[in-house]
Structures are given as structure tokens and as C-alpha cells.
């Protein structure tokens, strides 16, 4: 008598996903996705950023500094609690609020607008310094320096007084 034979179906592997789907779902695809998101969000969506610092080295740039009435430099980090570079970014951002967006316009900003920007930045800096119990001296002066690379290869620095408060 024949013994009953157990009938088993051989295990079959599921059909592989289409190549395009495997490529799309590859962990490596997270990198281009990340780049697309950061480029789209720019600087508006912390923690994302397109990291644009030093992305267009130009032949001029600017920085600001603070002094007392005797033109002795005041430590921005010490009083305001931020680096000089950050306060400079606040200054440049405030310039945009006053319509100075283009590089060439910012380079030779009209003095009357520049002094309004300076006054606003000084007011903020004073408030921040007072909040940290390290008030800026009265009065404090804000100066702006334009650094330029001249066609003959010289580096020049033009300093001018912007505001006092």
C-alpha cells in the first residue's frame, strides 16, 4: 500500500520590485531628497538651511563695530552677547527692511537711510545688552567699514560713522 505523500508547494520568493522602485526606495536617495528640501526651504525653515555662507565671494564686503564717545572699541560679545559677525548680519538684514537689497546699493548706501538702519540696530543692541545686565555705555557709536579689493590688488578699508545712541 502506498503511503500518502505530503504534497508541499515549493516556497516561492515574492517577485522582485521593479528596478525603478528599488532605485527610488534606496537609502541613498535620502541625500538628493535632503538637498531638494534644503534648497527649497532656504533659510526660512530651521533646522533646514541651504548653507549659503560665502557662496559668492565678492570684491567688497562690510562689517560694523561699536565704540564709546572717545571712539574706543566696545566688546560686542561682552556687552550684547553675540559676535560682531552676528550683529553685522542683523545690520545687513535691517538694511533689507529699508529697501537696500542689491549689493551695489548696500555698498554705497545713502547716508540718511544707513543712519536709520544704524539707529535701529543700536536700539536693539542696547536692549539686548541691558537684558544681560551688561548695558552699553551712553552714548554708543556705530561705525561701518567697507573693505574693497581694488583692481590693482590693494585691499582698502573705508570707515564711516553711521549712528549714535
Amino acid at each position: 500500500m502506498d503511503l500518502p505523500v505530503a504534497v508541499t508547494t515549493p516556497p516561492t520568493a515574492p517577485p522582485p520590485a521593479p528596478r525603478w522602485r528599488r532605485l527610488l526606495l534606496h537609502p541613498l536617495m535620502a541625500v538628493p531628497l535632503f538637498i531638494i528640501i534644503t534648497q527649497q526651504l532656504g533659510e526660512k525653515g530651521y533646522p533646514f538651511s541651504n548653507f549659503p555662507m560665502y557662496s559668492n565671494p565678492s570684491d567688497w564686503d562690510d562689517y560694523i563695530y561699536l565704540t564709546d564717545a572717545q571712539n574706543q572699541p566696545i566688546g560686542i560679545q561682552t556687552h550684547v552677547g553675540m559676535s560682531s559677525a552676528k550683529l553685522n548680519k542683523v545690520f545687513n538684514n535691517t538694511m533689507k527692511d529699508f529697501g537696500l537689497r542689491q549689493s551695489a546699493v548696500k555698498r554705497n548706501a545713502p547716508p540718511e537711510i544707513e543712519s536709520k538702519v544704524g539707529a535701529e540696530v543700536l536700539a536693539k543692541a542696547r536692549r539686548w545688552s541691558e537684558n544681560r545686565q551688561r548695558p552699553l555705555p551712553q552714548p554708543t557709536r556705530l561705525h561701518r567699514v567697507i573693505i574693497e579689493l581694488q583692481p590693482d590688488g590693494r585691499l582698502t578699508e573705508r570707515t564711516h560713522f553711521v549712528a549714535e545712541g
Partner: protein
Amino acid sequence: MTHFTFKEALWSVFRPVWRPLPAPGPEGFLARLAFALMALTMMWGLRFQFDSQDVPTGLAHFVDLTFLSKPGVMPWVTGIFAVLCVPYIFAQGLAVVLPLLTLIHCSVFAFFNSQGYKSHGNQIISLILLAQAAVVVFFAAHRWIKGRPFPLRAGRTRDSYLIYYSQVVIAGVYMTSVVSKLDVSNFRWIQNLPNMSVQLVKTHRQEFYSKPETSTVSRDAEVPAARWMIDHPHQTRLLLGSGLLLEALCFLVLANRGWALVLGVSITVMHIAIASLMRLYFDFNVYASLIFLVNAPFWIAWIIRRFADHQEAAAHPSQPPTRGPLEAPPVTRG
């Protein structure tokens, strides 16, 4: 167990995988420990002098974060962050802990960046937290929706994915910066590099005016590196252009541990050079690179394992060694 030649061991470290790698033994723990300490260091002692968020970014678009500047709030926030770091380090309740850590970190530094300046030194850490939170939430959602854990490839653990997507963030940060440089400069970035001398003078002056009383740079001193850049434009393009190439090649860190190590060391050297040349400090980028690219936790775990093997071999001299000279964990495709 077979013996490995040096060449074979080297190949095992440099064999392209492009996927999460096994994270054996204490590697995941050490990576979480180092990363948690770094994130906590950023928060420690942080107090805000700001009382508004004039230029909101991220969460500040939706939530008024000015409460963070109220007296006594930040010590509490930092304390909660520190407490949450403990289960994170020991990989307990990550699906809850990591999103909370991310929320706190992103809120604090979104407020920090909502004052009219953008500081790019903190973002990499917030982004890594966000990526790790996304991984654990995805794993939890998979288990909840499909009723079974996410099928991991052979030898992989959740730590493998946490480390891999942290590397994705680091690679993405540098590569998106390359895209921005080429986009903003209309592909003239390398051509314009001699102009970087202007920025060099600027960063030196800014360092002085930040803390004139203790600054190591003087007020009006010439910056020799800036002069050199003007006098040697082609060498400047070659030198700084290699930095751009390095950033563009950052996707290689995802290939395997070998390339991650090479790129990680190069990025660390690049940041040290930038700090010394331009007075721009990206300390957290360096630390993140040491943890996830150079992968110090893996090498520490490897040394511990090798040391244990030597002790075992000394105790049982008749048995052959079980590991090769540079053996990494197997990188099977699973």
C-alpha cells in the same frame, strides 16, 4: 574562522555598500553617548537676551518662542533635555524620547536664529536629531500599521539606521552647500575665489571687535593670508577649490566605513584650516564628523573587541585567532 590578510581586511572596510552597516556591540551606545553629550553641551548655560523674534525661522513661524527668554525658563528646558538624554543613551523609549529631544533642540535654536542673523553652526545637530527621530518614528509606525517590526537586513540593528541617516544628514549639509555656492555665484565660485581675501580681512576684524579686550588679533594688522590669496590667485583656486570638491564628494561617506573615515578626517582637517585661516569656527560639524564619519565609536568598540580577543588567545594559546588584523563586522547584503 578564516584568517584575513591585511588586503582582505582593507577590502572589507572599503567595499562599497551604500546601505546601513552592522553596528555591533557598544558602537551604537557610544555613538548615542557622544552625540547626547554634544547636544547637551550646546544647551548648557544657554540664556537668551532676546525678547522678540523679529525674523522668524522654523517653528518660530508658528509658535511664539519668546517665553524661552523669560528668567528661569532655559534652566528648566536644559534640565528636561538632560533627563531625556538618559533614556536616549540607553536606547529606551526612543520613539517618544527622540521626537521630544528634537522638538526642544529645534525650538531653542530656531528662536536663537530668529533675531535677524542666521547662525549655521547649530543646524547640523538639530538636523541629525530630526533624522534620528524620523527613523525611530518610521520603525514604530511600521510596527503599529503592519503589526510586525520593520524587516532589518542581516546583521543590522536600529542603531545601524540611526548612524546611517546621521551620515546622510552630514553628507547632505555639505552637498547642499556646494549647490548653493554654484547657484548663487552662477557657477563662478572658483573663479571668484581670490576675492575671498576680502572676507578673510573681514573675519579677522570681526574677531577683534567681538572682544577687543582679549582678542589675539589686532585692530588694523595686515592679514598675510589675504595678501597671499591676492598674489597667488591660481593657487588659491586650487586650495579652496579642493574644499569644494571635498564637499561635493561627501556622498561617499555612505559607501562604507573606509570612505567615511577618509572623508571624516578630511572634513575635520578642512574645518581646522578654515578656523585658523578665516576665524570661522564650526566645532559642532567637527564633533559630528568625529562621531559619525570618522566613526570613533566603531573604532573604540573594535579596539575593545581586539583587546578581548588577545586576552582570550593568551588564555587559550592552542586555539587559532578568531579575527583578522583589521576585520570589520561582515558587510553582507542580507
